[in-house]
Structure formats: C-alpha cells, structure tokens
C-alpha cells in the first residue's frame, strides 16, 4: 500500500495527543491530591492580581487601541529586520535598497501619527 500523504504528520498527532493527556492528567491529579482550604479572597475571580471591581465589559480609551496598532506595525518591522540583518552580506545593495524603501514607508507612517498627536498620552 502506498504511504498516506499525511504520514509525516504522525509525530505531530502524537505530540497533540500527549499534550491533551498531560493537561487532563495534571488537572485531575491536582483536584484529587490537592488540599482544599477555601477563603473569601481565594474564591474571588482571578484578574491578574487586581481586585476585580465592576463589569467586565467596561469601555477603554481609544488611545490604547492606537498604541496596540503601532506596536504591531513596529513588531512586524522587527520580524523583517532580523533576518535581513543576518543575511545582510549576501543580500547586498539590492537588499539594502529594498529594506530602505520598507523602512521609509514605515517612517512616513510614524511621522504621520506623530504629527497627528497619536503618541501624546495626556491629551
């Protein structure tokens, strides 16, 4: 019989299975073996260490959104810059020009948001 085209993915399937079994096993063991001494503070909903107050559906200032957006833009830029820097020698002037165009485009965007005042936190 011809080997299935999915055969190379077998290790992946095993890893997935193991991950599932491990997660379930750890949770089961913790609930079976762990001691239980509940207190008022421990029973609170966990919110990153903060005291959970108010509705979960509160509205955030739009400036958080702008910062998140800018972060993604420059994060992606870094993703491209690292491999480019590693291969700088081989890519030569062509690569340099390509990356200069790429960076220049992002700089135009940065100048735009800067002048628009999107980087001022107190507004």
């Amino acid at each position, binding site marked *: 019989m011809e080997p299935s085209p999915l055969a190379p993915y077998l290790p992946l399937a095993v890893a997935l299975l193991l991950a599932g079994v491990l997660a379930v096993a750890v949770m089961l063991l913790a609930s079976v073996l762990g001691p239980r001494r509940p207190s008022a503070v421990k029973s609170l909903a966990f919110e990153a260490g903060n005291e959970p107050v108010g509705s979960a559906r509160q509205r955030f200032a739009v400036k958080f959104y702008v910062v998140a957006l800018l972060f993604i833009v420059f994060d992606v830029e870094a993703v491209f810059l690292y491999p480019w820097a590693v291969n700088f020698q081989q890519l030569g002037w*062509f690569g340099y020009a390509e990356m200069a165009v790429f960076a220049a485009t992002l700089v135009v965007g940065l100048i*735009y948001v800067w002048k628009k005042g999107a980087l001022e936190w107190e507004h």
Partner: protein
Amino acid sequence: MRVPSIPAADFLPLVPAIILLVGACVLLMTEVFLRSPSRGYQAPLSLFFTGLAGAVSLSSAFEPARPVFQGFAAQDPFSSAVTLVVCVALGLAVLTSSGFLRSRNAERGEFYALMLFAASGMSLLAMSTELITLFINIEVLSVGTYALTSYLRRGTRPAEAGFKYFILGAFSSAILLYGAALLYGATGSTKLSEMAVVLPAALAAQPALVYAGALLVAGGFAFKVAAVPFHMWTPDVYEGAPTPVTALMSAGVKAAAFAAMIRVFLVLGKGMDPSVPLALFSGLAYLTMIVGNLLALPQRNVKRMLAYSSIGHAGYLLVGVAALFVTAEAPAGDGFRFFGATPLLAPGLSEVAARADALKGLLFYLLAYTVTTVGSFGVLAALERSEDEPKGTAWDLDRFAGLAQRRPGWAFAMAVFMLSLGGVPPTVGFMGKLLIFRSAVDTGLVGLAVVGVLTSAAAIYYYLRVVVAMYMRPAPEDERIPVTLSWGTELALALSALAVVVLGILPGTVTDWLQQASTLWLGQ
C-alpha cells in the same frame, strides 16, 4: 543561500501602483505638515497622481505579456486595461469628493490617501498571478475601503456599514484563502503558471480537492463582485458609505475583483471539464441578474436602488465570464443544456477569437459601467444633504422631483446615466450590453442572453422612475437645493455624461483597442 536576482525591468510594470502609493504618502505628509486650513489642493494633487498612473498604464498597454517577479505577477494588456478603468473610476470619484467633503467640513488628506492606497491594491490585483500575492492585494484594497466606508462618523449608518463590510469581507477573504490552500494542496504550487502545468495530473489524482478549492475561491470572488447569493452586504454598505466612496467601490473594486477572478479561472478552467466553470458562472449569472434586478424594483431610495442595480450589473458581467469557458467541442456527458441550447461556438469562430470577443465585451462593459455609475453617484452626492442622512431620506426619490427645472444640467446628466444603466441606445451602457450578449449568443449561451435582455427590460422601469421624477413631477415648495456647488462635481458630471454619450455613439476606437489588447493577451 541563493540570493534572488530580480531584474530591474520587473519593477517597470509596478510603476502605476508605485505612483499611487507615493501619491498617498505625499497626501498624508502634506495633511500633517501644511498648517493652512484650506485643503483645496488635495483633490487636484490626488488627480495629478491618478492621471499620471493612468497615463503610464496606457503607455504600456500594448507591450506583449510577460511574467515578472518569477511568475508572481504579470504585465499584460489585460492588467493595463483594468488599471486604466480603476484610474478612471478613481479620478471621477476624487472629483466628486472635494465638494462633497467640503460641504461636510470633512476634507482631509487621509480620505484621498486611503482612496489612492485602495486603488494601488486594485491595480496590483489585476496583475497578480500568484494566489498569495492576489490575496494580499485583495486585502490592500479591502482594508482601504473598509476604513473609507465609515469615514464620515455621523450617526449609526456609517458605523453599521463599516462593521458589516469588515466582518463579512474578512469572512469572504477567509473562504478565498481556504480555497487557495486546497488548490495549493492539490497542485503543490501557488503560482498560476505552475498550477496550469500540474492541474491535469492533480485533477486525475484528487478531483475533489481541486473542485472544492475552485468553488471556495469562486465564492470569495463572488462576494467581492457582489454576485448573488453573496450579495447581502451590498445595499447596506453602499448606502452607509460616503457617496464618492460608494462610487469607487461599485466601479473600481468590481473591476479589480473581476480581473482577478478571470485570471484565476482561465487557468483553472483549462485543466478541468469546461462544463464545470461554465455551469458555475452561468448559474451565478442567472441568479445575480434575476435577483439583483428584482430587488431593485421596489426601491424608493435611489442610493439603495443603485446598489441593487450594481448587483444586477455584476450579473451581466458574469454572462461575459461564462462565455469565456465555451469550447469548440460539445462538453462531455449528456450535453450541458441551457434553455434547450447547447453551449457551442458559432460556426467559423475559433476558440481564441470567441474568448477575445468575450473579454473585449467584459472590459468594455467594465469601462461603460464605471463612467455611468460614478456619474450617477456623483449626482446623488451633489443632491444629498447631510442633515437628512440619519432620517434616511437623503436619497429618497422625492429629492429628484422637479430637478429638471431647478438644475437642468444635473437632471440631464442623471437622465443620461439612467438610460445608460438601463441599456438604452445611444449610450455606452447599450454598447456594453450589446457586446456581452452578442458574445453570449455566439457561444451558444442563448438562455443567458435571453434572461439578460428580459431583466434589462424590467430594469428600465426603476431607472426611468428617476427620470420621470426629475422631468414630470413638480418640485416640492419648501425644497431647497443644497449649495454644494463645486467645480469638481460639475466637471465629473460633465466628463462622465460626455463619455457615456460619446462612447455610446462612437465606441469604435475603444473597442478596437480592447479587441487588440484581448487578442494579444489570449493569443499566447
């Protein structure tokens, strides 16, 4: 590591798109650096870049087709023609934008920049010959139009339109991507040129995978061109978007999406039984023509009516797409029949000639629809008053009552556009329909031609209703015409009306040119 070597000549076909991108960046920079409150320079500046891009694509229109960037894109007469249509749509939309935005105190560089960014995506989409490049360019044009849709943040309508367009657009992009992934799985390549080679073998080995992929890709495109049953978003989005943006969406986005769809399916269709794409696009065309035109009938809101009419026109274009897949031999099987007629080429017509005819019809129809629809949205933009928008009466048919006495120029232009959309001679809309339906008859798709003519006849009713309101109904006493007079709107209306009439009477030059371009492209 092997460094990819890209010849400098590969960048030449990108020049129109690069011009549009540079223009967008220039507009963003002048917007933040020029402190003057007057922004009257922005529309002429955008027009300059649009005109430059259009001129460059026109100058390269007759260069023979060649792949660039190792088969990721192609420079050919087809891409040049589509870029030209996009530039015409963009130029006219920009002209109508300046007065429209100024009267709402919303003229900003971002608006024009987003339009130029979206148009660069459209131009690149027409060139893409690789599924990932194609997908990225669909996203470039979509993200620009999503943002433009809710550009005027007044009331709930623009927000609803933007949100709806974004969610459904993202969903359709995902469907397209899923189809592309299946096609990649079946053929082992995302380049159309390589897929064409492997496709027969892939079809023999895994037909289900190829057909499922092709169907999903077709679904994604059908959403972008607003074909039934993927049309639900169209009326709400077209109504909620600022009117010049609606004009750009209905003309530019449609042209680019049709271009990409044709490119992909000309390759996919070559490998498979021709009756499959034929059935797919004929079915879509039947549904889109009938449903789009029927839903437009009861509309009293002219903007919604134009949105449904845009769906109907996508149906006529799909007739042209279906005609691309008719072959010289009768399809295998029991004979694939439409209304008793088997799709078969007319005697004495070669396959390439028939395809070139259909393609010429499609390109001419796209141009005809562009000048007509952007013109009619231009009249709408000039007439609507921003304070009526929340009530939803800004585009009511009553707004057109008695327009002929108050603004005879606008009324005449609107009448010309309505006749052209309805396909009445001597307008360009008639010539477009003639070319498409003739190519349908020549390829034996008689059923499609019959339904096309019948739905066009029904459509005359709702187009002429606007003309009747303008010329035969008295103007309401208290009605005041808004003073959004701007040279841009007037120029756009005059240019589009002129184009509609001149291209309708003397289409020869353009059809010859498109014929030459289509033959040049398909002949290889």
